[in-house]
């Protein structure tokens, strides 16, 4: 039975008919997309997307595929957590991919092992004293790189009023340049065992999920989250309400920078190498995950849960195309279509709201 209560002033409303959280729509989309691939798979290649079809393995689901999907999205997902916060405040961060490149190079240089297969490390960047450092050193150096890049972004945006698009575009080019200059374009390999452990196996997934939970709580339960939404929905009002908007923005971009750096650490550890071209286009993938997950590019709306679901949709689509044995080139094009479609959907939602 529908139970009505009274709000303030005696207007009746039915608390059971609360507006549906938008994340449910994203979840529904995720399920639909998985089903679509399942159907397409059975129709065209006679294989199941979701379920295990091999006789020699005794599981219900195709666990291998599912693992690959979440592993694939985890690293970019870490970046997307930061990008989500930036977009919620009404900004954008185009620099994360390049920050990944630069951070991976620099952090890896501090994670060199002294002996490779009984011989001295042939790729060492620094002298002997800088070999076999404890793992905390490259991690802190890496996070420091991300913090630095984020602070520069944030300070430019908050205090010189350069549009976020331009400021982070500058950082995108500069950080990529730094990544190439660092070792004159040579890859850096042979990390210590402890560094290699950071991204081993399912560690990236664990790190992603942990961070997602932490930032979900931060965005929903703390002053930081409240102020982020307030700034994104009406910056002038936030300022008039006494929020220090400039300082808050610096903090948001700094956090986004550190998350990009963390992704770089996990990625270089997982690949056991760092290259100047690491992370190219990751910024767009991260933005796409957020937008697919319902984070509005206008600011003020979206959530970490949405972004996590968006990341899964993203991963499922990429993996689904591989599963259907479509070319890698299609994947790139499809990614482009997904991003545009998500933005169109967001604009359409805005218009709906405006009319209502």
């Amino acid at each position, binding site marked *: 039975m529908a139970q009505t209560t009274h*709000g*303030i002033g005696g207007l009746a409303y039915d608390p059971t008919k609360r507006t549906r959280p938008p994340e449910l729509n994203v979840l529904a989309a995720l399920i639909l997309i998985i089903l679509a691939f399942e159907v397409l798979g059975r129709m065209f290649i006679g294989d199941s997307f979701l379920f295990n079809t091999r006789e020699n393995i005794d599981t219900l689901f195709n666990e291998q595929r599912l693992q690959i999907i979440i592993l694939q999205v985890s690293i970019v997902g870490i970046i997307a957590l930061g990008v989500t916060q930036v977009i919620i405040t009404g900004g954008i961060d185009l620099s994360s991919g390049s920050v990944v490149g630069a951070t991976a190079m620099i952090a890896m240089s501090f994670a060199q092992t002294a002996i490779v297969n009984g011989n001295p490390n042939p790729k060492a960047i620094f002298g002997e004293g800088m070999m076999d450092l404890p793992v905390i050193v490259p991690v802190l150096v890496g996070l420091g790189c991300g913090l630095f890049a984020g602070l520069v972004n944030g300070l430019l945006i908050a205090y010189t009023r350069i549009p976020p698009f331009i400021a982070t575009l500058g950082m995108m080019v500069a950080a990529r340049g730094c990544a190439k200059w660092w070792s004159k374009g040579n890859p850096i390999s042979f990390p210590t065992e402890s560094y290699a452990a950071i991204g081993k196996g399912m560690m990236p997934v664990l790190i992603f999920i942990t961070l997602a939970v932490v930032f979900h709580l931060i965005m929903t339960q703390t002053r930081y989250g409240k102020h982020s*939404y*307030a700034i994104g929905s009406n910056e002038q009002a936030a*300022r008039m309400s*006494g929020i220090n908007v400039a300082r808050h923005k610096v903090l948001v971009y700094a956090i986004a920078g550190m998350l990009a750096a963390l992704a770089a650490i996990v990625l270089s550890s997982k690949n056991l190498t760092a290259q100047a071209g690491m992370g190219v286009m990751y910024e767009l993938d991260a933005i796409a995950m957020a937008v697919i997950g319902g984070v509005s590019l206008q600011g003020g709306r979206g959530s970490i849960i949405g972004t996590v679901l968006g990341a899964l949709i993203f991963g499922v689509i990429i993996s689904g195309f591989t599963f259907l044995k479509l070319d890698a080139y299609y994947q790139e094009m499809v990614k482009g279509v997904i991003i545009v479609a998500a933005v169109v959907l967001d604009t359409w939602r805005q218009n709906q709201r405006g009319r209502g």
Partner: protein
Amino acid sequence: MSEIILETRGLTKHYGGVHALTEADFTLRRGEHVAIMGDNGAGKSTFVRQITGVEKPTRGQIIFDGVEHTFESPIEAREAGIETVFQTLALADDLDVPSNLFLGREKVRFRLGPFSILDKRAMREATMAALVKTGVKIPNLSNTIRNMSGGQRQCVAIARTAAFKSKLVIMDEPTAALGVQETAQVENIIRTLKEAGEPLILISHNMRQVFDLVDRIVVFRRGRIVANLRKEETDGQDVVAYITGAKTGAEYEGAP
């Protein structure tokens, strides 16, 4: 303790070539309720923005509670004790009512700098109490401001000033979008402030309301103060004459 709570001397604001406010000398005594009237674009809201730290005046002094202030931000003005209902309301559309009421000064359960954990329940309860005072009808506090009517928004903005202790309340056209009942409620809030001895600056175009509520009327015209009238010594027609420029107060001769 001086008898004057707020004084401005030569307060001036230029926006590029626009002289929105020129040499405003204004005083407000403790416990006094003053209305600011004037046509659209007369500079009333500009005046409010200068004394609440939203903008920095081009020149001039602001003396509040006996101390000269240069408010760098609205927080400083608020911390000094000035609560304002801005004409633009300054609400965040995507947040719900309690979040807006406590925006910028949230109740926290656990202090952790920017990551302080919000006390949502306490804010919700305080919001209920503050809203009841305004007599607003809001079916569901968890609705975002975006989904509310103009009057409901205005009531949220007013409740925001009512929920906090202050030394001076400023309301810039607080009843512009309100229905009859809600207007009466807001006027009651203002009367309560009067009884409590809290000073108020009320900006309004509503002559009846102004004569009902305040002690003194200050008229702005083209960025200048052109009249300072005690309620007993004036009437509606007189005020209109000052607003339109048919008359100018003796002490303000020379103003255009």
